[in-house]
């Protein structure tokens, strides 16, 4: 199966060729070919990312911004180039708007601990949604405890769709920030992010977009979005673990105090007072994950060979195919039926606990996630302890979805 690229110069998206780029996809699990459907938790890595890490450590490893020796200059150049690759990938205006973090979680914590503390606004509210991951709830609760800010939550409906009327009403009351997930990891809902950003900006409320589940599935252009902050994780976009990105508009980042204190983030240090380095280094204390940044850039280079539209179309086909397959099995209730979904399908089987499903599927070589997906308020809203979730990446196939549905059907027969 292949989808012709419509951008000249792009590599044609052919899933068989793509699969050959990912060494782990040839693995056997319990004697069966691996069917990896846990991409919302983390994605597998293409050979080019693995090679970039190995190559960096074999030929260029040194600390950056420190020494005059050649290896340090080489490592620094590679790290700088990685930042530029990321800027280009999300179309940020300035390279210094790209802050390296350990992941989406740290990026949100950074904003909460700096912008959240310092920014003055007429209304101290922090606005999130009922479908947030814990990483976009708890940092704001910690902030609220420190500053007395109020956490306000935009509700969702039974399909897992955001209540835009309630959003409009909450935003009209004003607030310090709207921090919102782009695509829900637990429900697959794609939020109307452009509209929400416009609505928030009408009330002068800056917006942080949690892009952990979106940047790998669709083309992100932070300037077109007009997002004030955009956070994502490297390991969910075919890059290494331990590296992530906070994009922030330069004007806002310049006004924010530093996050961690330490080396690299300072201009001068005396025991009386220190002054801060320029962006992006102000937010990057200590030796960063140099290899991780280089690996992430390799992952983005890998994706950039293709037309993101072709990847999105392929993944959407898998999601639709899986949804139809699950519905055909009966006995299954899909959690999250928003008209706009991407990447993941969550479901429960009446009378069968998701963990038992997960163990049976594992023995057929199928990796899915079972649990609350770090979104306990979502589980509480739907009054379920956990769900099973299949989530897709660019290398998954319809054949894998069929293996998944067949295994599920056998499992339900045994367990129910």
């Amino acid at each position, binding site marked *: 199966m292949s989808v012709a690229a419509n951008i000249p110069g792009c590599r044609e998206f052919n899933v068989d060729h793509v699969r050959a780029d990912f060494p782990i996809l040839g693995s056997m699990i*319990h004697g069966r070919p691996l069917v990896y459907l846990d991409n919302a938790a983390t994605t597998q890595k293409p050979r080019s990312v693995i090679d970039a890490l190995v190559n960096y450590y074999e030929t260029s490893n040194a600390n950056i911004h420190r020494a005059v020796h050649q290896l340090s200059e080489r490592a620094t150049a590679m790290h700088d180039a990685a930042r530029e690759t990321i800027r280009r990938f999300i179309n940020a205006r300035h390279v210094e708007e790209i802050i390296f973090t350990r992941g989406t979680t740290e990026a949100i914590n950074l904003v909460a601990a700096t912008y959240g503390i310092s920014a003055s606004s007429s209304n101290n509210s922090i606005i999130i949604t009922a479908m947030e991951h814990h990483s976009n709830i708890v940092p704001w609760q910690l902030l609220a405890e420190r500053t007395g800010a109020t956490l306000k939550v935009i509700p969702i409906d039974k399909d897992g769709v955001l209540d835009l009327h309630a959003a409009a009403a909450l935003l009209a009351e004003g607030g310090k920030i709207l921090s919102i997930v782009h695509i829900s990891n637990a429900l697959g809902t794609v939020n109307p992010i452009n509209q929400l950003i416009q609505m928030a900006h009408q009330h002068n409320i800056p917006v942080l977009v949690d892009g952990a589940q979106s940047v790998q599935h669709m083309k992100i252009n932070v300037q077109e979005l007009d997002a004030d902050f955009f956070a994502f994780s490297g390991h969910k976009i075919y890059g290494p673990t331990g590296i992530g990105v906070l994009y922030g508009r330069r004007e806002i980042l310049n006004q924010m105090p530093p996050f961690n204190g330490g080396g690299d983030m300072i201009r001068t240090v005396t025991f009386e007072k220190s002054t801060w380095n320029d962006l992006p280094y102000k937010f990057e204390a200590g030796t960063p994950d140099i290899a991780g940044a280089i690996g992430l850039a390799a992952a983005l280079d890998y994706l950039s060979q293709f037309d993101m539209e072709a990847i999105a179309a392929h993944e959407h086909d898998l999601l639709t195919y899986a949804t139809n397959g699950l519905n055909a099995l009966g006995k299954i209730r899909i959690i999250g039926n928003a008209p706009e979904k991407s990447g993941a399908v969550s479901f429960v089987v009446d009378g*069968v*606990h998701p*963990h*038992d499903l997960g163990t049976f599927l594992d023995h057929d070589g199928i990796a899915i996630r*079972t649990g609350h997906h770090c979104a306990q308020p979502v*589980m509480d809203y739907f009054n379920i*302890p956990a769900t099973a979730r299949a989530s897709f990446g660019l290398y998954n196939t319809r054949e894998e979805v069929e293996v998944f549905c067949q295994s599920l059907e056998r499992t339900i027969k*045994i367990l129910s």
Partner: protein
Amino acid sequence: MMNADLRDLYQEVILDHSRKPRNFKPMSGATGFAKGANPLCGDECTIFTSVKDDLLQDLTFLGKGCAISQASASLMTQILKGKSRQTAEHLFNLMKKMVRDEATVSEIEELGKLTVLAGVKNFPSRVKCATLPWHTLMAALEHKSEPVTTE
């Protein structure tokens, strides 16, 4: 077809206890009770005990969770009824050894009916499912007011 490890774990006895858990009810006049939870997977378990003269006169449970945790709780309530607190603690220790694959042959024999849970030893991620009811029971016997977790 089911693989041997999987067949060992999900024996018919286990499935039967998870579908029709025994002693699945609250207890009025309980002398002790405790709530247990596995925060990572959302399993919940409440154990009620009635202890007299150091004997577990009665024990019941409520909860929701996977087949392993439900069956383990159901079996535990059956096995321990009428046993002493010391026996309960002893069997819990043997259970822990069995599911971690550290038990001797004679220790496994001592566990009697509970050996249907021996298959858990091949599934390290499921050990906490099997032990949650036991951890909760120990808290109930100690009258712990704080919810216990397996983490």
